[in-house]
């Protein structure tokens, strides 16, 4: 049995007296599509932050692709192939849309030896990524000229541009229309078919169910379910804590 | 060889008295920076302003400086409101606090100092009051009243503010606005108004701190800058926004400064505070009573 791409082992995080994460155990296999759901405040974003290195977990270990992550800074994890998008889009306001995509290309892809990265290839990649999310026509625009939806796509595109092995999409579809949600899900599945492992964190159940091969549920900092999506949503505890609301 | 115990004890006492005063100076920053997250590096400028106002009214009308500070409290409060309005409209609302807000307050600091130089010149100014030249003596202990009186007033100020923040509705709203603006507004309290009140209070404390300063030492316009390091060192060391923490940190700094001054000379004193600050920032930025 091959080792999981991501292994989260007894990870805990507190903010003062508040326990945000309480001994989380989670594994993600290479090439898997994992969905992560839970009520607001359950610790999903904190978990993402601990995985990506934006926050540091006080207890437990995060292991990615065989590398122990504890103590590694966010940019180091990105270089190793772990990328995330932010729940609230955080574009670089003084750069154009294309330049926003260029940043991870210049700073992450260029470090990687397993991905092509001459100047021409990077430029080609930039246009490719913009095309994938449908933002090519806005390449020269500033983030402030984008609609909410387009900003979310830019956020996702920026994470994709880093050529990740694992992509964490943190509520990337909030506020999108039904067809837009379908588009993004299709995009993520296509990325997955190219070999990228994806963790999808979402509230939109149609997206979660159509996307996930496996589903985990977080409530009040604890994982209360983890398994086949159809089984998980029928779990009475999950219904009570989250779905029943 | 005779270890100068008496000298040490006097330095210790002087340090405690000084530290108490430092707490009064810092408490305004504890509110504006520690609680409201507004980097008001111009705070010492307001303090010096308070000192000079105390000086003028003391010289012209013979009023006790502490009395003067209480009289001008409303003026400083409204000055604080005005400054906060400008700050809020220009920076906080636009989300550009970091660079521009800092530059704004630095500009205020600078302009205040230069205006004071233009109006008063660079000579040292001091106040006259009955108790300033008196020193109480208990065997080898020296208790100069010019330090004791400010110490007492400082304690009253800090204690009063702590009670205000923990017992009154407005005070608790101020503590709350630091943590959760949305929740506060849902409790029918306008966060902007609460922040403005808090900031105005912080500037008002400068009036009192200014009067105490000119009682302790003669003042000239650049003295404010010496206090920037002290004030932020104490605020950070005290855990940002915790008044009890501020008091402890202030006392600690006062003692270290006093002992350094006594045994190594007063010209090293400014470096002590700033050295403290650099070390704190490098080693334990969450402060002594850190979260």
């Amino acid at each position, binding site marked *: 049995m091959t080792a999981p791409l991501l292994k989260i082992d007894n990870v805990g995080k507190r903010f003062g007296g508040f326990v945000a994460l309480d001994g989380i155990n989670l594994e993600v296999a290479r090439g898997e599509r994992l969905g992560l759901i839970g009520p607001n405040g359950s610790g999903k974003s904190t978990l993402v932050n601990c995985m990506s290195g934006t926050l540091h977990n006080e207890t437990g270990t995060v292991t990615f692709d065989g590398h122990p992550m504890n103590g590694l800074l966010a940019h180091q994890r990105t270089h190793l192939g772990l990328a995330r998008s932010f729940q609230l889009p955080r574009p*670089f306001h003084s750069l154009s849309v294309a330049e926003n995509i260029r940043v991870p290309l210049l*700073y992450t892809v260029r470090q990687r030896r397993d991905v092509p990265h001459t100047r021409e290839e990077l430029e080609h990649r930039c246009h490719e990524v913009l095309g994938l999310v449908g933002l090519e026509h806005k390449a*020269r625009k500033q983030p402030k000229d984008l609609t909410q939806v387009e900003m979310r796509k830019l956020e996702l595109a920026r994470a994709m541009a880093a050529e990740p092995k694992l992509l964490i999409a943190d509520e990337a579809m909030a506020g999108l229309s039904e067809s837009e949600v379908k588009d993004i899900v299709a995009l993520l599945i296509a990325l997955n078919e190219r070999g990228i492992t994806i963790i999808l964190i979402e509230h939109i159940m149609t997206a979660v169910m159509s996307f996930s091969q496996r589903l985990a549920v977080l409530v009040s900092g604890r994982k209360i379910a983890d398994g086949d999506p159809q089984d998980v949503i029928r779990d009475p505890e999950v219904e009570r804590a989250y779905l029943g609301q | 060889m005779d270890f100068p115990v008496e000298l040490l004890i006097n330095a210790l006492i002087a340090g405690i008295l000084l530290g108490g005063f430092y707490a009064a100076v810092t408490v305004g920053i504890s509110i504006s920076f520690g609680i409201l997250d507004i980097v008001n590096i111009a705070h010492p400028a307001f303090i010096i302003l308070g000192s000079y106002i105390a000086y003028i009214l003391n010289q012209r009308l013979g009023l006790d400086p502490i009395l003067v500070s209480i009289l001008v409290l409303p003026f400083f409060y409204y000055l604080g409101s005005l400054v906060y309005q400008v700050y809020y409209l220009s920076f906080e609302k636009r989300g550009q606090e970091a660079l521009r807000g800092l*530059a704004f307050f630095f*500009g205020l600091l600078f302009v205040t100092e230069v205006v004071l130089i233009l109006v008063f010149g660079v000579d040292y100014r001091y106040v006259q009051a009955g108790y300033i030249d008196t020193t109480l003596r208990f065997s080898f202990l020296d208790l100069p009243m010019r330090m004791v009186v400010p110490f007492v007033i400082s304690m009253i100020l800090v204690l009063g503010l702590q009670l205000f923040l923990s017992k009154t509705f407005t005070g608790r709203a101020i503590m709350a606005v630091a943590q959760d603006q949305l929740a506060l507004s849902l409790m029918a309290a306008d966060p902007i108004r609460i922040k403005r009140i808090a900031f105005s209070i912080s500037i008002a404390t400068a009036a009192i701190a200014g009067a105490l300063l000119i009682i302790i030492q003669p003042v000239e316009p650049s003295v404010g800058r010496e206090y920037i*390091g002290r004030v932020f060192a104490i605020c950070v060391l005290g855990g940002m926004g915790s008044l009890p923490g501020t008091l402890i940190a202030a006392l600690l700094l006062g003692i270290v400064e006093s002992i350094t001054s006594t045994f190594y000379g007063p010209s090293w004193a400014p470096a002590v505070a700033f050295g403290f600050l*650099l070390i704190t920032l490098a080693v334990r930025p969450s402060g002594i009573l850190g979260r």
Partner: protein
Amino acid sequence: MRTWQFFLVSLVIALAGFMGARLLQNDYLFFAGYVVLQFIVLATAWNILGGYCGYVNFGSAAFFAMGAYTTVVMTKLPAFANRHFPEEIAALVGIPPIPVLILLGGVIAGLVGLGTGYLTLRLRGVFFAIATLALAVVLQTLIVNWDFVGGSRGAYVIRPATAPLFGINYIEYLFLVMLVLVVVALTTARAIERSRLGYGFATIRDDELAAEASGVPTLKLKLVATTLSGAFMGMAGAPFPYYIGFLEPSSAFGLAYAVNAIAMPMIGGTTSWVGPLLGAVLLGTLQQLATVTISSAVSLLLVGLLLVFFVIIAPNGLLGLWHDYFGRKHKTEDESKTAAVKTS
């Protein structure tokens, strides 16, 4: 325009200007001009960290003074060597020429910048800013207590009678040296803007968390910016003792440097190398005029008021106003910037 082309063109323009100024036969022009050139370097240096990365340095005077006092130390070394070392060794110790002193000043100030950055850049930007204030005071206290460089009494630095270059006097020589430093500083700033490093800096300014997530090594880049910025400030300060003849801590660490280093880029515009140049030339000239006609205190007051005014009303400086007025210019610059990164 490629970087080396810009460097050569600027150098030629600068030298032409120098020659032209000599024709006017007015020494005061060089005296006052030197100060303005100094400010261009300081403003450009500040902007590398402040404008490009978004980290405010309040202690510019400290880095400037580091450069100045490195020179003072070097000028005092021969006498020191004579007193404490045997003759053969002492004879080897001389005062280095100004270009070497500039490099030395840059290295020392750069190291100080690196050290300060290392201690504080892992924290929020405001703590860095406060730490730079603290640094200025600590360094000033150290210098004041150090007798070798004169302590609070100050130190005399004798200007050599003749300049190392043929046909010009010493003030003109200092002016020329500072002019070359200006060209180097501006070229460096412009080169950074158009490079991968410049992108990294911009992301730090815009959103540090997102920058980290995109793979930008923010701490490393911030340290680079701090070191470069500090180094240039030190280089600007190195010739200062020769210019002024008598150096004391209160003038070396003067508040004028701290305020001008911030005001000039912020009023000129922080997003490009042109801003600090513009701000320094305008404000520098304004201050010279005000000092001569009214008083130096009033000229400083004007700078302070202008800073507050611009920060509130026109946060992007004069360049920002220009871009708003001529909106299209901004878009074309964006495209040429894109092209520059592709080809550089």
